[in-house]
């Protein structure tokens, strides 16, 4: 039988049983669709988290209070045995290979301006923080270079916060109230998205000493160190641990992490997650395959007379088998293409909707879904097709 004739024969019988064809097509399309869409979303999420972390330069060390013994895992974000103090930070800033140091305190407080109020993120920092986080000022200036332990009633606010409190009114030089203390706005940040979970657009930045008074704490949330050269990174990290150990009576109760190590830890977790959700999609593909098998089985029993006739006319078992398998393959291929296309369309829509999330299905996901779909079709149609082919012609004709 010639290929064109065979395809024509397949298409005829597919279009004859419209409902069955449609169901199989939808099942296969949904399977492939979910694989491609889920991997696309997973990849998008992973890229997003990666981008969050890469806001920090690669040449930055972060010191957290508390110690986690296992290396390579996630560092604890809160708690710890002993505070990291401003004096600790000052000591660290005297180490070699340190370009700058940013002690941070983070908290939440209600910020008021003439009747309007907003619960917002308060970050106690210093000018180095602006450099390390690449924060830009759209109006006014950043925090002044002052002694690190000096409190000043000044602040820099994010553009969103400014809009909430002042709308279109000028904000520079105005006094804000928060939790019993006051500060004057000296600068407004340029729009700069989120990073490491801090939404800088809604943040209020004050000198670190002021924030310690505000939240009544001696301990720093974390210390960021701008490292002069990447090459000295590991050595410096050891140095930092040694200094901190010395200052904390011989006990090592801080964690030093590099963005690179954090990044790779997250990357691993997220990659596993992506695979996991693709596997969920894979299950729906498998279900689609089983459905195709059932449908092909039904089709075989519905068409025994036709099979008998074809055999009576001289079709070989092989021909009959090929006819049924190729019918299933055509269905699977069409379903897979449909699924990939609709997933791509949806991912495109998602990209339009969330412009900072890069939802793109990796090419291997589509390729894999396609291959699995075709293999499913082949394997699951093979059994019924073989049954059809082995029917004795008399049996089929009666």
């Amino acid at each position: 039988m010639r290929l064109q004739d065979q395809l024509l024969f397949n298409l005829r019988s597919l279009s004859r049983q419209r409902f069955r064809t449609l169901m199989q097509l939808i099942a296969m399309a949904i399977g492939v669709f979910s694989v491609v869409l889920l991997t696309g979303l997973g990849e998008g999420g992973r890229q997003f988290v990666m981008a969050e972390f890469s806001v920090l330069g690669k040449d930055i060390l972060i010191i957290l209070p508390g110690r986690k013994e296992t290396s390579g895992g996630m560092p604890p974000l809160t708690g710890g045995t002993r505070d990291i103090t401003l004096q600790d930070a000052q000591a660290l800033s005297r180490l070699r290979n340190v370009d700058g140091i940013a002690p941070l305190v983070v908290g939440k407080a209600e910020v008021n301006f003439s009747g309007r109020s907003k619960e917002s993120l308060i970050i106690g920092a210093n000018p180095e923080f602006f450099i390390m986080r690449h924060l830009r000022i759209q109006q006014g200036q950043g925090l002044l270079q002052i002694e690190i332990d000096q409190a000043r009633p000044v602040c820099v606010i994010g553009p969103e916060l400014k809009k909430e409190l002042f709308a279109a009114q000028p904000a520079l030089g105005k006094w804000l109230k928060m939790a019993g203390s006051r500060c004057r706005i000296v600068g407004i940040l340029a729009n700069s998205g989120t990073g490491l979970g801090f939404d800088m657009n809604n943040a209020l930045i004050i000198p670190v000493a002021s924030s310690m008074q505000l939240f009544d704490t001696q301990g720093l949330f974390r210390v960021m160190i701008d490292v002069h050269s990447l090459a000295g990174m590991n050595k410096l990290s050891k140095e930092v641990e040694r200094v901190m150990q010395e200052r904390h009576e011989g006990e090592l109760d801080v964690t030093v992490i590099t963005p690179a190590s954090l990044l790779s830890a997250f990357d691993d977790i997220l990659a596993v997650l992506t695979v996991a959700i693709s596997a969920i999609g894979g299950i729906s593909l498998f279900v689609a395959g089983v459905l195709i098998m059932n449908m092909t089985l039904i089709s075989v029993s519905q068409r025994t007379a036709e099979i008998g006739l074809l055999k009576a006319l001289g079709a070989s078992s092989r021909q009959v088998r090929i006819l049924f398998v190729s019918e299933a393959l055509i269905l699977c291929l069409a379903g897979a293409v449909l699924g990939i296309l609709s997933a791509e369309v949806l991912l495109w829509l998602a990209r339009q909707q969330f412009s900072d999330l890069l939802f793109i299905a990796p090419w291997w996901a589509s390729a894999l879904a396609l291959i699995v779909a075709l293999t499913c079709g082949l394997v699951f149609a093979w059994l019924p097709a073989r049954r059809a082919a082995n029917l004795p012609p008399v049996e089929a004709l009666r």
Partner: protein
Amino acid sequence: MIQVNQVNKTFQLGDQPVHALNNIQLKISPGEYLSIMGPSGSGKSTLLNMLGLLDIPDDGEYWLQGCDGLALDTVPMDEEVRARYRRDHIGFVFQSYHLIPRLTAAENIELPLVLAGIPPDERKERLQPIIQRLGLEQRAGHLPNQLSGGQRQRVAIGRATIMRPKLLLADEPTGNLDSHSGAEVIELLEELNNDGITLIIVTHDMDLGDRAKRKIRMVDGEIVLDKSREQEPS
């Protein structure tokens, strides 16, 4: 052309064995016109299916002449070889037509050529004269359910003969037809026989059966009568 030796076929019906073919001995020469008659359940269809290689006897020999003129025993043949034999040498006409409903009359007739992988140009060439001969020019593009019974059976005959087989088997070809279209179909079959094809018809209709030059009567799986018209005293 056909030589059947000591062929038996039993079916198991519940715990009762049914001897559908009982020691069948038959010899058929090329170009013969046979009718097989007998009561219902006597094994006529079973014999025809066996002759048409749709069914395999339990034992015995069935020698069938191939295209090279050599007769071969088909009983031990591989199913794929039998399929090839059916395609090239044997045409079937069934009582219930067995047309494929989604294909037009012309496409149904063409189907064996398609299965045999013959290119479209040649198919068209071979199709045209047959459609003309069947008187189906006006109906060629119609689906089976748009055709009358007689027209459907003519389509089936066209399909059975388009591969130019040497043997044409018809199992009650007029069973579903009124006498007029039945007669038309029989005339068509006899015309084909006049052209040299070996024709075997199973029928319940005495008049139709009597038209054949050789009549076989079956009872309980046995051939009880086998007479040629030439031997009849007139």
